[in-house]
Every structure is written in C-alpha cells, then in structure tokens.
C-alpha cells in the first residue's frame, strides 16, 4: 500500500513539475511576444535604442534550450526512479518467494523429526520419514546453492572445473537423469538427433542447466508434459533445442524471462512457486561456457535454443582457458 502511494506521489510530483516548467516557458514566450509587439509600435528612433533584436532572440532561444534540457533531465531521473522501483518490487517478491521456499521444507523436516521423537513409529514408516527429510534437505541445499553460485557467477568469482566431454553421451545422460529425478514417464521426454562432437563443460553446472529447463517445463505445463530435445553439431557449434508443450512464452517475455527474479504469470497455471532465478542461472551457466541461450516463440509451448562452441584444441582460446582454470569456488 505504501509503495503504491509512493509511486503515485512520484508520478504526481513529476507531472506537476513538468507542468510548472512548461507553463513558465509558455508564459515567458507570451511575455516576449507581447513585449515585442508593444516595442515595435514605439517610434522607430526609440525602438532602435530599446530593442537589441539579436540579444533578445538569443536569450529566448538559449532559455528554451535550458528549459528543455532541465525537463529532459527530470524525465531521465524519473525513468531511473521507475526502474529502481520495479527492481525493488522484484527483489521484494524474490525475498518473499525465497522465504517460502526455505520455510516449507524446514517445516516438513521439523514435523518429521518431532513425529519421530514423540511417537512410536514402525520401522518401515521411519524409513519413509527419513526419505522425506532427505528430499527436503536436498531441496534446501539446491536453493542455497543457487543463491551462492549465482552470486559467484555474477562477481566472476566462480570457476567451474571443466573437462572435454562427448556432447551426445553427456547430454542424453543428463536428460535421462533429470527425467528420473522429476519422476517423468519415459514417453514424456523424446530426444532426437545426435551430437557427435566434443564440448568443454563442468558436468555439475550443466546438470543444473538441464534440471532448470525441465523444472521450468514441469511447472508451466498444464496438460500431460511432452519434452522434445533436438541435438545437432555443426562445424563450430553444438546446438541443443529444448521444447515443451506448456503454456509457452509471450513474445514480449522472450528476453525478460532470462532476467534475474523475473517470473511469468499465466491464468492457466496460476500461483507457480519459484524464485525467478532458474532461467537466469541457466543463462549465466551457458554464458560461462562461452555459449548463448535464447527463448523462441512457437505455436505450442516454449522452446529454448542453446548454442555452445565445439571443442578445438588449437583454435578456441576461451575453451582452453576454461580447461586450465584453477578451482576458486567449489562446484
């Protein structure tokens, strides 16, 4: 409520200030023209002494330029404030989401521990409870890791230990791992094509990338999920296309979805939980490995296209640097 009031007040002050500037400018022009008309009617001999045309016009034009400059300056300041306001709102939403994502698994762990402590539970049930707690602990770990690793990537402090891998085997393996992890049936994920080339990656980071894309597909698909992964190698690039049959991405959101904290809301899948970090993290990981990721608009569902450089020992300096990089953060 206070934020809305603050935004409204800022807009109001801006509009009033602009109106004031332009009224003053109008008044000034009016004054100049009316004075000019009066003075032009005065006797020629006098007008020559009173009016120095060049100086007056210069003052008027210079004044107008100054006014426009001030007005533009104010508009820029206002635009920056609006951006800051939006960022603060995104950050607030992120904090609320992270708090929720931290508290919920913690509540579950506490509940199961208190249950184990307070009740006589048969052994098979105890094991089930321990599995639940481990699942929640993993969820907490993933969330904490995501925040720390993204911070590391942003500050360029993160250094993944990279190796040369066969793209086909690694990607197909990681997609299958993720399918099992997300409890998706075999027919839900379909891989097409071959990527018979080598690329330089950190396998853990790449797993996060694949997991995030699948997590995204699961969250934003209303009907039975179908994921299609297409692999292709050109002379210089490895191309991975990752498509789902979910709600898709509106053209206006194609770039925004990779921004930090940005989240899509859609009436078909309301109240989707998350932190708004998943795709941002995916983008940072791809960028770190010297590649590009973009979302593509398509008729049904969302499609992500990832391009990564193929490994050439002699030519790709960036990939060689990745291979030589020393471990600074543990990934």
């Amino acid at each position, binding site marked *: 409520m206070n934020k809305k009031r603050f935004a409204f007040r800022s807009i109001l002050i801006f509009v009033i200030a602009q109106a004031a500037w332009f009224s003053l400018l109008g008044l000034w022009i009016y004054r100049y023209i009316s004075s000019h008309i009066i003075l032009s009617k005065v006797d020629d001999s006098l007008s020559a002494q009173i009016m120095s045309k060049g100086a007056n016009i210069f003052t008027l034009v210079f004044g107008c330029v100054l006014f426009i400059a001030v007005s533009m300056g104010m508009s820029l300041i206002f635009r920056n404030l609006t951006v800051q306001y939006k960022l603060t709102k995104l950050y607030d939403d992120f904090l609320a989401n992270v708090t*929720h994502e931290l*508290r919920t*698994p913690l*509540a579950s762990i506490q509940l199961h521990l*208190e*249950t184990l402590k*307070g*009740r006589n539970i048969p052994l098979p049930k105890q094991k089930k409870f321990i599995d639940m707690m481990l699942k929640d602990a993993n969820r907490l770990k993933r969330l904490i890791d995501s925040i720390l690793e993204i911070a590391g990537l942003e500050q360029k402090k993160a250094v993944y230990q990279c190796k040369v891998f066969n793209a086909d085997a690694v990607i197909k393996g990681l997609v299958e791992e993720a399918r099992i992890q997300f409890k998706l049936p075999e027919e839900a994920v379909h891989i097409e094509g071959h990527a018979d080339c080598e690329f330089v990656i950190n396998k853990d980071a790449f797993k996060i990338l694949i997991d995030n894309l699948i997590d995204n597909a699961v969250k934003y698909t209303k009907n039975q999920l179908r994921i299609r992964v297409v692999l292709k190698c050109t002379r210089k690039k490895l191309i991975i296309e990752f498509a789902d049959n979910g709600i898709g991405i509106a053209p206006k959101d194609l770039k925004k979805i990779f921004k930090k904290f940005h989240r899509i809301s859609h009436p078909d899948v309301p*109240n989707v*939980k998350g932190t708004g970090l998943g795709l941002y993290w995916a983008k940072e990981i791809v960028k770190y490995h010297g590649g590009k990721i973009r979302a593509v608009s398509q008729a049904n569902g969302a499609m992500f296209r990832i391009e990564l450089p193929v490994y050439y020992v002699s030519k790709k300096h960036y990939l060689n640097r990745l291979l030589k990089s020393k471990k600074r953060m543990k990934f």
Partner: protein
Amino acid sequence: MSSDSKFSGSKILLVEDEETLASGLEYNLTEEGYAVTWAENGKKALELFQAQVFDMIILDIMLPYIGGFELARKIREESPHMPILMLTARTKVKDRVKGLEIGADDYLTKPFHLEELLARIRVILRRKQWYQSSSETVPVYRFGNNEVNFKNLSCRAGKKQIRLTYQEAMVLKYLIDHKGKIVSRKELLEKVWDMSPEVETRTVDNFIMRLRKYFEPDSSDPVYFKSIRGAGYMFVNNY
C-alpha cells in the same frame, strides 16, 4: 502426544501442496484420531469441500490454481461456520491480518511445532462446539432495533439485513456474554482467536469497527460497542 477423544473422528480437510509436509501432517492427524482428507491444490480442495462435510479445514495460502485467501473467501461464502486454520510460510503481519479478516480462525506460520498445531486444532474444535451449543440455548439476541440470529448468522439492523461472518459472530457473542464488562483487546484475541496478543491488536479494532457499522445508529458515536480508553471495549445494552 496428547489427544482429546471428544473430537476423535472429526473430519479435517487438509489443503497443502507440499507432498512431504502433507504426508507428515496426514500421518499425525490420523494418529490423533481425526479423519483426514488431503487436497493438493485449491481447485481440488473446493471440489472436496462442496462434495463432503468437514469439521474444520487446515489451509495453506500459496496454492496452485486457487490461492488460500481466495479459497477461504469462497468457503466463508458457502459455510460461515466452517473453522479454518491457516498454515503458511507467509509470516508478514499484513498477511496474518488479511487471513484473519477473511475469516480464518487461526493463523500458524511454518515451521511450526507439532504439539502447538495439535493444540490449536483442539481449541478450534472446542470453540466450534461451544459456539454451537451456546447458540442453541440463546439462538436470537435483540438489542435496540437490532436482532442477531447466532445460528444462521443473519441479522436485522433496523431495516437492513446483514449476514455476519463466523468471526464477527464470535466477537459479538463474546461481548454479549460479557455485557457491561470491559473486555480488553488482548482478551478478545486470546479468547476468540486463541492468539497471543502481540500478534496484532489492529485485527480486533477492525472487527469492532465493522460491528459498529452494522449495528450502531451512528458509528462515530457508539452506544452499544463503547471504547474504554486504554482498557478495551464494552458492550452496553440498556435500551
């Protein structure tokens, strides 16, 4: 764990989308003797609520399809007496106030202690029983031009017809039961909501304001719901 056999068999609708938490809650509530039905999203919860009879609802707020606040509102429209306990990770005061004003009987934040949750469930069920038996003995109460039916929550205020929410009726009932005595905000929070007073006394003020709006001839100069400066509120009926 202590259980109250009086409420054994009470039907609870558990609305929670987190599978692990829901499964732990379901186990514990079943062990306490309650009959639990689990709904993993707001849409399913509403369908179950409309199809079956429950004694109370445990409701998360951040739910898929229909959020907890909206669901509570829909439930209140259909069943003003249904006790609702909100169990959520949203800890902000404004969320608590919103939840309580929509008509939640209690609001517990995650993570929580199992004993506390079970105790609160018992209090809610006990309070529901108190309200039911007490509204059966005195179902209709009249003051001034107002008439309140505590059974169906319908009221007549002069020529106006109003329907109270369950919480409004509870506050009114408590004040009427303590007619002529000062009732502090703290007492109302503890007795009506079973909440610690540091939660938010503003909630109580909002409810009193609503009662004044419904029943007072002039809400700015109240004759029935008087404010006692620094002490609380007093219900007066000398008319």
